[in-house]
């Protein structure tokens, strides 16, 4: 298979959030680094999910372009790449959903 395996997303990195993570999440969204330099497994997980989904997506569109312009890509490889991109995207959306749900759960805790 011509498609390189996906790197960068390890499902074991998915950690339950502690108070430190909530602080990290509240400092301004997913793009901002956490204030105290605390480890942010959630953020890192999501970031790596996004970047690998992105990479798979561009690989898929590259293959499809190859098939359409007749530069020799196999049709079935392109279809498989597209399907993998779709699944990566779904995975990424699920990760995002879980993170948001966890954050909301935490912020509902009475202090």
């Amino acid at each position, binding site marked *: 298979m011509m*498609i390189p395996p996906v790197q960068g997303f390890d499902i074991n990195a998915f950690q339950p959030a502690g108070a430190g993570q909530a602080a990290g999440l509240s400092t301004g969204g997913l793009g901002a680094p956490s204030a105290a330099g605390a480890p942010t497994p959630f953020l890192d997980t999501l970031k790596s999910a996004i970047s690998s989904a992105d990479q798979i997506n561009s690989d898929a569109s590259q293959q499809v372009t190859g098939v359409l312009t007749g530069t020799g890509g196999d049709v079935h490889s392109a279809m498989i790449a597209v399907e993998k991109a779709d699944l990566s995207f779904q*995975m990424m959306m699920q990760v995002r959903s879980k993170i948001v749900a966890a954050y909301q759960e935490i912020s509902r805790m009475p202090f």
Partner: protein
Amino acid sequence: MSNLIDNGQTKLLGKFLDLSVYRQGLLTSNIANIDTPGYQTKDIDFKGELQRSLSGATDDSSPSFGPTVRNVPDLTTRPDGNNVSLDRESMMLSETSLKFRLAVQLMKEQFKEVSMAINDGKAS
């Protein structure tokens, strides 16, 4: 993700599809040259190539290596030097088509399983 989608089963099926397509190309060449003087029937060692890719390289990203093509043994040669057998090629054509179809169905099953795993048991 790397293990979820790119698992052993998917790799095997992907390689199977690649080899089927390659073989189809050779069969087509054979059939096209059924009347060409001196042409020798060509094919690949399907099982061998499949096994090699599974046990050997973890990642076959180099496009310049196709499977090894060799002449098919034990065919009768006609007076013009051509040894393409109409029967063999027809039979291989059917077989390759059907196996390709089978592999596609199995691959779809894989995708469906992964999709269900991601989406908590819902189809999509």
